[in-house]
């Protein structure tokens, strides 16, 4: 069953009608509904193109959070061969919100890391909805160290509403863990490539995405705060999330203009959730190109390149 977003309701109606007609036709042989059903298909197809051509920032947020989008686990399953998960922070626990391990990307051994939100109630709870605790960031630090020691490129798949706001997380140093993970990203002498595959939520995303190259999916978002959070603070009304999403300039298209992301990977019409395999394949191709572009750089150059990338940010705005 397809999950429709709120703004896709007219589409759901048309597609529903077409499906009903076809189901009806199966019950009696004399009925010929194909003409009518195809007309509806055509109408739905046009509407889909239309809806996705000009997504508002708030609609982008909804698409970025769509439960059927390919998640971190899907990318790891499809793009990395011989994947061996590596667990734990060696201090406290293994954080299931963070997937991490070693695998081959087109034969090249790499470390892959990412936040996994889960795909049903059970796995969502298990994964804590992709919100990492300090252990998750410390696992990331450990794996980045491993990558550095064995000269393996690091690929991070970013998809998180943010770091987990919980009692234990705070007691165990959530801030420190995030700060150290960002610091580690800046220290490793191997290529680091990040892909924002869905939601790049605040500091919890930065800790994974302080990379040489930041790739964003066409309908992914990356923001300092969720539109709902921003609305409740600045508008004193969480229902003003549409306005907040607009103001925050959190779309891949705006972030490209600001230099926060380096390139955008196109999604199929109707979003990644309507073409999971195509999307995963496109992301794979993009990683391949970026890895290739960083080949041959020595440790010093890779570190210097990453630092300069972030020091230079803010030289161009959207208004000037």
């Amino acid at each position, binding site marked *: 069953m397809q999950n429709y977003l709120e703004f896709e309701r007219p589409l759901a109606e048309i597609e529903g009608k077409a499906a009903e007609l076809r189901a009806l036709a199966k019950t009696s042989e004399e009925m010929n509904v194909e003409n009518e059903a195809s007309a509806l298909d055509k109408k739905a197809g046009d509407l889909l193109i239309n809806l996705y051509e000009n997504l508002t920032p708030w609609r982008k947020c909804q698409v970025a959070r769509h439960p059927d989008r390919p998640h971190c686990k899907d990318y790891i399953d499809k793009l990395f061969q011989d994947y061996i998960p590596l667990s734990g922070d060696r201090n406290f626990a293994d954080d299931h919100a963070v997937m991490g391990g070693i695998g081959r990307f087109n034969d090249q051994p790499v470390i892959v890391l990412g936040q996994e939100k889960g795909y049903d109630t059970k796995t969502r709870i298990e994964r804590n909805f992709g919100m990492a605790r300090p252990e998750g960031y410390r696992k990331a630090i450990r794996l980045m160290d491993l990558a550095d020691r064995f000269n393996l490129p690091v690929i991070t798949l970013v998809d998180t509403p943010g770091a987990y706001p919980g009692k234990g997380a705070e007691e165990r140093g*959530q801030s420190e863990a995030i700060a150290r993970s960002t610091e580690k990203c800046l220290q490793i002498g191997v290529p680091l490539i990040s892909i924002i595959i869905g939601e790049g939520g605040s500091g919890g995303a930065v800790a994974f995405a302080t990379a040489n190259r930041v790739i964003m999916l066409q309908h992914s978002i990356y923001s300092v705060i969720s539109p709902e959070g921003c609305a409740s603070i600045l508008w004193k009304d969480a229902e003003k999330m549409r306005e907040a999403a607009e103001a925050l300039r*959190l779309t891949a298209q705006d972030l490209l203009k600001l230099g926060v992301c380096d390139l955008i990977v196109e999604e199929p019409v109707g979003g990644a959730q309507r073409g999971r395999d195509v999307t995963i394949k496109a992301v794979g191709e993009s990683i391949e190109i970026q890895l290739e572009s960083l080949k041959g750089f020595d440790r010093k150059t890779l570190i210097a390149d990453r630092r300069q990338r*972030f020091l230079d940010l803010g030289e161009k705005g959207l208004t000037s």
Partner: protein
Amino acid sequence: MNWIANYVRPRINSLFSKRDVPENLWTKCTECGTMLFHRELSQNANVCPNCDHHMNISPRDRLLTLFDNGKFTPIEIPKPINDPLGFKDQKKYPDRMKSAQKKTEADEAMLVAEGEIGRTKMIVAAQDFSFMGGSMGMYVGNAIIVACKLAVEKKCPLVLFSAAGGARMQEGILSLMQMPRTTVAVQLLKEAKLPFIVVLTNPTTGGVTASYAMLGDIQIAEPNALICFAGPRVIEQTIREKLPDGFQKAEYLLDHGMLDRVVHRKNLKEELVMLSRMLMGLNPAIKGDLPKPDSSENNE
């Protein structure tokens, strides 16, 4: 581009001479409720004489209490693009900026200065909570980069006083990008093997805590300061239970191994000097009286 080539010096300290404190005004201590005359409070570095509550102190007043004879050179910070996103909520960002500047008489949420503390050369950066909640935007990022580079150039420690509600939402993603940006700056300082001492003051939260404010070689906090990533209200909403007493306060963090020290404001100067000199391999500071403040300079 060379950041430190841009600062203008020496701006005159008298710009920062003490404002007249109206004697007839008082403040209520937020902790114990005692009515305190402004003068009494300012003589006590904004610490309540009754209950020892550490109230906010402006960067300027902080630096006056810290630097020898209250003498320091403010460092000019490169101005970032004004309102990079064209941000508007119920108010336009440039209007919010203007009212913050009017209210605080400061340009932005961080002041960087150079001078001597206990006859030890130091760079100090102080965040201003009264300026839009001390929020970290591009200016604060620039200030930290300048402070770190200047400390490297002058081969001296950097002491940073943090105070912020987090990132500046009105600069959107560019404020978030100050987390990695300031981390780069701190790395430059560390590679030069110079001390980075962070003093966390009330409150330090969000993206500020999760970047430069937690990366100090030494982590000090003022008593009872709220220090956290996610604020207590957000956590209560998430876990739907009451939080323990003192949760996320300096002493609680000290108990949980997140800090080196909790230090009373009146002892801070001496401790910063001792720490810096030991970390720098310098002789103990000369104790005893320093020359009296030059009254002609301070009371213009």
